[in-house]
């Protein structure tokens, strides 16, 4: 990452310096320069926006986008109020029905209103994490197996090499059709659209994780493997005590890499497949073509970027936490 990134981690690591001049320099570096950068960006943005006229009106500047953040939040609150009213009406209706039809077992149904922007953020996050974890559950054992066995590596390598460069979006139609065919319950507990997005994310996360894990496992220090051999560690112990910890840095590198890509792909997949989430929000707004649409899309863009950044940082913190080799966990 470039040096301009201002990270909470750096702030925490900041230690006050006794030397007054040093303190000043540090403050300038940590606070003033990034603030100046952001300010210049905002100025350029608002100046640029004023000069771009689209068929949906002027390109939104920071103020318009800020307003839409407010509007989106108000909408969210209003939706929550509607939700409360919805449940209230439902309770009354159920009570009436029970009075008329004593055999009826009242059931509280979920609110049928539209997801708000904030709900969509939640949906996207849940989707990306589920897909990511599913991928990890497949990729890490597979990567370990491939890394341990040159034979398996030779067998899997061509497949991995061919599928790795495929954009998961190309899989999307196939995933959709296969999920439709295989997941045919009349009253699904988990929405098909969620499964489609999740599997797309999984496909995207799979390869970097498999490759990094396999490389991590294959490149374990020969001596460590020899230690295990001398100790006659049984295969499972060997994996648990030697292989897994030794390849943790590489595994995490793969995980971080794939989570970053997954987040980008998810947004695109949601746009393409109209699956709930931030991508769908962007697409819907684009389709609406209202005079607020661009500002709302811009608001989503900022949120998407911010979440992507936070995801990356959290992975980094996790990596720091789990990895013995602190040297690899840098930005």
């Amino acid at each position, binding site marked *: 990452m470039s040096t301009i990134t201002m990270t909470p981690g750096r702030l925490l690591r900041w230690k006050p310096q006794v030397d007054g001049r040093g303190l000043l320099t540090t403050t300038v570096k940590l606070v003033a320069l990034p603030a100046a950068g952001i300010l210049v960006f905002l100025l350029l943005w608002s100046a640029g926006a004023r000069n771009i006229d689209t068929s949906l009106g002027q390109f939104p500047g920071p103020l318009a986008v800020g307003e839409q953040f407010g509007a989106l939040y108000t909408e969210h609150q209003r939706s929550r109020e509607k939700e409360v009213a919805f449940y209230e009406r439902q309770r009354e*209706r159920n009570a009436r029905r029970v009075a008329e039809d004593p055999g009826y077992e009242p059931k509280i149904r979920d609110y*049928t209103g539209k997801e708000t922007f904030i709900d969509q953020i939640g949906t996207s996050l849940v989707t990306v994490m589920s897909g990511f974890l599913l991928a990890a559950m497949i990729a890490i054992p597979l990567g370990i197996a491939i890394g341990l066995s040159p034979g398996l590596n030779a067998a899997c390598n061509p497949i991995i090499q061919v599928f790795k460069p495929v954009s998961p979006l190309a899989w999307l139609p196939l995933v959709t059709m296969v999920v439709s065919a295989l997941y045919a319950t009349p009253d699904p507990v988990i929405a098909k659209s969620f499964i489609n997005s999740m599997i797309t994310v999984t496909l995207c996360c799979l390869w970097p994780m498999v490759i990094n894990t396999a490389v991590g496992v294959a490149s374990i220090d020969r001596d460590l493997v020899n230690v295990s051999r001398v100790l006659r560690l049984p295969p499972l112990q060997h994996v648990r005590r030697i292989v897994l910890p030794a390849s943790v840095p590489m595994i995490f590198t793969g995980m971080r890499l794939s989570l970053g890509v997954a987040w980008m792909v998810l947004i695109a997949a949601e746009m393409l497949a*109209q699956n709930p989430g931030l991508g769908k929000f962007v697409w819907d707004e684009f389709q609406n073509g209202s005079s607020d649409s661009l500002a709302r899309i811009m608001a989503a863009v900022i949120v998407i970027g911010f979440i992507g950044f936070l995801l990356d940082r959290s992975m980094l913190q996790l990596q720091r936490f789990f990895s013995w080799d602190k040297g690899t966990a840098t930005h």
Partner: protein
Amino acid sequence: MKWANTIRAAVATLAFATGLGATTAQAAKLGYPEKEELTFGFIKLTDMAPIAIAYEKGFFEDEGLYVTIEAQANWKVLLDGVIDGRLDGAHMLAGQPIAATMGFGTQADIITPFSMDLNGNGITVSNEIWSQMKPNIARREDGLPEHPIKADALKPVVEKYRAAGKPFNMGMVFPVSTHNYELRYWLAAGGIHPGYYAPHKGDISGQIDAEALLSVTPPPQMPATLEAGTIYGYCVGEPWNQQAVFKDIGVPVVTDYEIWKNNPEKVFGITKGFAEKYPNTTVRITRALIRAAMWLDDNNNANRPEAVKILSQSHYVGADYDVIANSMTGTFEYEKGDKRAVPDFNVFFRYNATYPYYSDAIWYMTQMRRWGQIPEDRSDDWYKELAAKVYRPDIYEAAARSLIEEGLASADQFPDFATEDGFRDPQTHFIDGIVYNGHQPNAYIDKFPIGLKSGEKL
């Protein structure tokens, strides 16, 4: 007649299943819905209004239905959603249930108990085309163009482009969409050949012999595609014609009201399986939609501004209030500033708009035959049987009768169910003056100068 038997059988089945004496005036009390949680799909167009209104005004909830409404990316996705059960029902193009039942495109038994609206579409051309058409159009005394504008004014432009070797591309929303047939009707009435389909030869591009090349673009993307110059014009529902005026990228030249006065437009489609499995739910959905349609046309469109406000929310149509209001409140803006009164541009309930007439279905089939989507000759009875399979006035009648009984509607708001045979009287208000009689589809097809006639096959 065979098709009449089919209807009777269907009615009997439904009556048995629901415990409703649909054919008698005395209807038993309508049962509770078998399925209460439903998901309906729609495309961002103002004519999805009955679904949004039924939701927002609580008509669905009054029926004990908890409905989630989801915008769909395009008509194909929407249809697939209904077929694979992701959606329980949807705002559909009238041609979709027919084509699906017939097996053109995806085969599936889709039925419709409810016609959603009349009119509501327009044909828009880019500013560049408009400026070339303008000299060919007669002017009124006030200098504004005389309406309706026929495709005759476009013909020289198309010829010029063709002579220059430039394909004249136009957009419509789906191969079996109203818009495809309306655009074709308008072009052909002006002597421009819109091209044939030949599904039996694997050609579903619909561009055989075409002078104007028609291709599919999802409605909300029409203005952007026009702006990009990929197409020179399009036929689409609102608000996407008015959007072109607002964005100053195109000019609507004709509304479908002018091509065929009070033409049937969208329908509400569900699978036949759904209707059989959940008969009470089906009738209840229809009831809620009828009430929504009544609300939309109540008091001479008095509720329309409120409806527009609802539709302009981003999870429904989402376009600006002004854009939607332009057509929904009884006006239509052609060239910028040329705003004319078209009180019936969107009809949701008047003129029996919601009743699923067999003759409406048959008109779509005649157009499918005319342009080769139905590649072979079919008997008049075939048309009628297929119409009876897809259009289900029996369900509509059950819903309407129960509404009348509960005092939520009055009998004079509906066709006289005792005598209604499902065929409108021969219709005369077409832009080319050709009369349509639903009882004689083959004879009707033979009247068109451009298009396949009975006995012809590509």
